Each structure stands twice: as structure tokens, then as C-alpha cells.
């Protein structure tokens, strides 16, 4: 394995390798052209801005999922974590604006805690992350159900909902810029900076070959645990935006983990870890959302979405598996 040599390479070179962002950029461009032909008005700044705003939670989750996947693990718990966060937020805020910020902080802490538990169980107790996070998924679903008697209570304050629902109005050229988009941009910049730091390179190395990483002095368990915490934090931010967008619901996060994993795989990140970029993962999520928008413009039933998602996972994994075996 050539990981050790590859590790110090600058990111620019890595992008041109398999797992780089060029393929996903090409797909995105094709979809944009198709959308432009079918529904030119979609590319007008206001409607494009609103599309980006409502896609922000999924893109954030894809970024969170990326950290875990590139380190060689999975996080299936994010969807139920989002649901739990939204339901908890509604009950704690109970429509009282004064509680908005304390609850936002609490949600971030809660997300990080769930990530920490996922990470420690996976790395210290050596439970495969598939099982760990599936267990966490079920625990959260059950706990929320028990805590809320099966129906959400309380309500979110307008202040809380602002992040996911409102926008900065009257921006020159763009029209209105959703707060969700600003949050997304900030998180994206942080994520890219993180992946360019030593930690980012270590994370990829751990996913590529944990043993080599360990032999070269990396504390693998700690790196992976941090990846899970990042995923939990991303889920918390996504929950804040999603709860803001649509209000309290028992369904808020249903199926989001698969959306995130599909997006990450579509963005050229190898399942099993060690290859791909966080920008690719986020572009993957954007592409997936654009694909759904395109399907809508062509009048394809929304019921087909999960089928398309499944086909993409299979196809992307098959493509990357043939590539890596021929390496």
C-alpha cells in the first residue's frame, strides 16, 4: 500500500485521482444544462437561492457523513438524530423565544454527545460502526417515541425557525439569500479548512489503511471518534435548519441517513474510506437534490426518489469497486 507516501501530497494532486471532484462536477454541469432547457426560470437567482437554501440540511449531513465514511466507518444514526433533535427542540422551546439560543447550544452538545458515544462504542468496544449506529438509530427512535408519547408536543419559536426559513432580503443581484445558505457556506469553509489541516490528512490515512496509520503513530480510535462527533454536530446543525424550514414533525429526519450516504458515494468518496474529498461529498448532495428537482420538472413521481437513490448507491459503489480492484 502506498498510503504513507501519498499522505503528504498536496490536495490539488489528490483531486485529479479517482475520488476527485471532476466527475461529480461534470454530472452537475449536465444536470444544470438539462434543468436550464426544461425550466429556464429555475436558474433565476431567487429560485436558485431558495433551492440552495432548502438543500442546505442535506448538504450539511453529507459533509458530516463524509468525515465518518472517509475514515472507514458509517453513520446510520443521523436521520433519527435529526428527528430527535427537532422533537426535543420543540418540547424544550415550547414556543418561548427566550429559550431559542440555550436550546440551540443544547442541540449542538447533544449531537456531539451522540457522535462521541457512537465513536467510543465503535473504536473502544470494537463494535462495527454499521451495528453501532444502527443500534443508536433504533435507540433514538424508541427514546423519542417514549418521551413524546408518540406525538410531538410544544412548538418552535419564530426565532428558532428563522435560520431554516427566513432570508436576507433585497440583496443586489441575488434577491434574497436564505440564512440556511449562509450557514452552509460557513460550515463548508470550516470543513475544507479542516480537511486541509493535519487532522484531515490523518483522517484520510486512517480510512485508507488503519494499520499503517497506527504504525506511523496515529491514534486511530481518537481520529475516528472525532469523525463521529463531527457527524453528530453536522446532524445538529441540519436539524436546526430543517426544523426551521418545516416545523415540528416526527418525520423530520426520516431517511436522511441514506440521502447523505448516497450523496457521499455519488461525490466520489469510497465506501470503506481513504479516498474522496469533502467538497465532492457536498457536491454529491447538491447533485442529488438537483436530480430530484429535474425529475420533478419532468413530472416523474416523487415516489421514485428512493429507487433512484438506491440505484445510485449500487452504481457508484460498483464503479468504484471495479476501479480499485484494477488498481
Amino acid at each position, binding site marked *: 500500500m502506498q498510503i504513507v507516501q501519498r499522505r503528504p501530497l498536496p490536495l490539488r494532486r489528490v483531486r485529479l485521482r479517482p475520488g476527485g471532484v471532476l466527475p461529480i462536477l461534470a454530472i452537475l454541469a449536465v444536470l444544470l444544462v438539462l434543468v436550464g432547457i426544461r*425550466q429556464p426560470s429555475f436558474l433565476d437567482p431567487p429560485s436558485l437561492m431558495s433551492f440552495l437554501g432548502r438543500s442546505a440540511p442535506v448538504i450539511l449531513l453529507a459533509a458530516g457523513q463524509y468525515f465518518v465514511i472517509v475514515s472507514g466507518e458509517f453513520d446510520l444514526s443521523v436521520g433519527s438524530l435529526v428527528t430527535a433533535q427537532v422533537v426535543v427542540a420543540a418540547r424544550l422551546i415550547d414556543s418561548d423565544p427566550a429559550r431559542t439560543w440555550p436550546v440551540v447550544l443544547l442541540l449542538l452538545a447533544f449531537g456531539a454527545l451522540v457522535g462521541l458515544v457512537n465513536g467510543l462504542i465503535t473504536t473502544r468496544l470494537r463494535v462495527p460502526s454499521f451495528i453501532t449506529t444502527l443500534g443508536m438509530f433504533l435507540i433514538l427512535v424508541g427514546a423519542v417515541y417514549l418521551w413524546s408519547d*408518540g*406525538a410531538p*408536543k410544544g412548538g418552535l419559536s419564530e426565532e428558532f425557525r428563522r435560520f431554516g426559513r427566513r432570508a436576507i432580503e433585497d440583496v443586489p443581484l441575488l434577491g434574497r439569500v436564505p440564512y440556511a445558505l449562509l450557514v452552509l457556506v460557513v460550515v463548508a469553509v470550516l470543513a475544507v479548512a479542516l480537511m486541509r489541516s493535519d487532522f484531515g490528512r490523518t483522517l484520510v490515512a486512517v480510512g485508507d489503511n488503519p494499520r499503517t496509520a497506527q504504525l506511523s503513530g496515529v491514534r486511530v480510535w481518537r481520529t475516528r471518534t472525532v469523525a463521529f462527533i463531527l457527524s453528530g454536530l453536522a446532524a445538529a446543525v441540519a436539524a436546526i435548519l430543517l426544523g426551521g424550514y418545516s*416545523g415540528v414533525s416526527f*418525520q423530520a429526519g426520516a431517511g436522511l441517513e441514506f440521502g447523505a450516504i448516497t450523496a457521499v458515494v455519488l461525490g466520489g468518496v469510497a465506501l470503506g474510506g481513504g479516498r474522496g474529498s469533502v467538497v465532492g461529498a457536498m457536491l454529491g448532495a447538491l447533485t442529488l437534490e438537483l436530480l430530484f428537482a429535474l425529475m420533478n420538472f419532468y413530472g416523474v413521481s*416523487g415516489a421514485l426518489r428512493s429507487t433512484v437513490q438506491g440505484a445510485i448507491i449500487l452504481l457508484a*459503489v460498483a464503479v468504484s469497486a471495479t476501479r480499485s480492484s484494477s488498481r
Partner: protein
Amino acid sequence: MAALAAVTLLSLTACATDEPGAGPSGGSSSSAAGSGTGEQSKFFVQADYDAELALLGATPTGPADKPWEQMLNPTMVDTATFRKAGPHKICFSNAALNNPWRQVGFKTMQAEVEAQKSRIKEFVHVDAEGKDQKQIADINDLLGKGCDALIVSPNTTATLTPAVEAACKAGLPVIVFDRGVNTKCPVTFINPIGGYGFGHAGAEFVSQKMKPGGKVLALRILPGVDVLETRWSAAKVAFDKAKVDVVGVEFTDGDPAKTKKIVDDYLQRYGTIDGVWMDAGAVAVAAVEAFQDAGKPVPPINGEDQLDFLKVWKDKNLTAIAPTYPTYQWRTPIIAALRILDGQQVPSPWKLPQPTITQDNLDRYLDADMPPLHYAMCGCTDLPGYPQRWK
């Protein structure tokens, strides 16, 4: 390894998605002939439809200020054989408590029990948690507990029928409400007019208030559930008759985020939507918000009697209507049980009126102090513990 993981992922998707057992085959939605409403539902029964629509115009008998004691076109049955000295032990096998409607309903029932506490010495409630098998076992258990009357709110119709029949054979009076069973053995079956009435009221309003031939978006929770299918099938008949253009029939899974995206998608695709119909009110506010956030006027729309919708209706001065599936029907089984144990006649079936909230009576039902998911048509304001119990 990676491929194996992906396959496992896929099968997980299958368990994680919402329950529609029929699968997403409901995609038959748009693009059919006629006004875009597609084929009629296989749950549609013309005779039932005609009967329900006739009941919508019927005048109920009973006290006008207590609709939960009123009855439509009653046929009374004798219950002298069940007469028994009180106070009584009343048992209740409940399908589930898993949505706000059932939560509000059950609290209303508990309050009714409290209001009648001089005549009820014990009230036993068992929650089947939405599982048929558990409810069958629950009913069986209750038969050995010395209940004087048994109330059943069945989880599903066909599967629970044998369990209800077994309860009838045990000799105690059985009262079924909300969803029905395929047997006449219970003393009475209590429910409001029903799904056709609900669907019709909303669709008729929307097609009358919108511009002629305009574009309607129909939002449904999920396919294959009888109470929801009847609502849609009645709406379909109304829309076909009004010759409006139903541009889409979509399933929301009761998810506000999904609802908002769907409405947003349709606004992108068609520019404007002139009317929105929905088979249940849970996501009505999300649909309204989608129009607001897109900067479009909210078209004529129907919701249900949940307070979040009534509030946005009032605040934003919407053109709206709220057919109801009233939660006050949870009071009636207790009243029926006590009448039966007194040997008084009760109607069978006991059809309750199903009021509709309109612009004219909106203020009567809007209560800013109650939580957003509370159902206004609970008929509970005179019960012990109001309003705290429902908060």
C-alpha cells in the same frame, strides 16, 4: 465488502421508510385522463358515498349543544338484557395513542370518565401500540378481568373482527368506535359521518372558491388506508364534476418538510397553484408556509380542526375551510356504555354529526391558549380538568 455494505444499506432503506404496505405504487397519480384525478380508488363504494353525502344534510336528533350525544337517522336497539346495577367497571382496548388526534381523543375520554365518576368505579385502558396482535391479546385479557362493558377502537378492521366476535360471545356489551369491524355483534358502532363527507366538504369548497378550471394540487398522507382513501375518492368525484385541473396528487407521508418541498416543486413547475386539497390537516400549515415563503398568495385550501391551522387561517386571512373528524367522538362510547348498562335504548349504528369549520364560525373554535396540535372539535371545554389536561 463495499458492495455488501451497499446492499445492506438498501434493505435498511426499506425498513426505515414509512409504512405504506402497498409501496410507492401510488405514483399512478397525475397524467391520467379526465381532470387529472386518475382512476377511482378501489375503496370507493357508491352506496356508502351516497349515504354519507345524504347525512351531511341531515338534521341530528339530540341536544344541539352536545354534538357527542347527537345522532343522525338513528335506529334504536333494545339493551334491556344488559341492565346492571352500578357503579361499573368499564374497559377500553385502544388501537394506539400514536398521533395527536388520538392523544386529544383519549384525554377527552378520560375526562368524560372523571365527569361520570359517581357511576364508574374503575376504568381500565390498554394501549395496543398500533399492533393488531397485541390488541387481539389485550381484548382476550380484558375478558377475564370482570369488565361490565368493553369499548374497542380497532387497529385494523378485518384482523380485529374475530377478537371482537369472541368478546360479544362472552356476554358483556361491546361498543366499537372510530374504525369499524366486519360484524354486527357489538351493541353499537359509534363514528361520525365519515371519510366521504370529509373529502367532499373540502373539495367542494376549494373548487367553488378558486377560479374556474384552475390548477389544483391534492396532497394525501399515504395510499391504501380506508379512511383516507374514502376522503380522496369523494374529493375526486367533486373535482371531476367541477372540471378543475388537478395537476398533481402527491403523497406527503404526513411530513411537513416533504409537503413544503412538494408544494414548492409545483410552484416552480406551474408558476401558480389555484387550490390545495388535503386528506388530513396535519401538514396544512406546511403547505400554507410553502406559498408564503415563495412569496405567492395562498389559494383556497382545506385543513382540519388543529389549532395551528386555524390560527394561520385567522392571522393570514386565508380562504379556507376545515372539515373535521371530531375528537368529541371519544366521549360517546362512555356515554353509550352507561346507557346500555342502564338498559336504555341506544342507536346502532350511532352516527355522530361531523361539523365543518368555516369562516363564519372560525372564531368560536380558535383558542389562542391551547397548544398548536390540539384539535378544536374536542367538545371538551365543559369537562373536568379543562384546559390543563389537554396542554
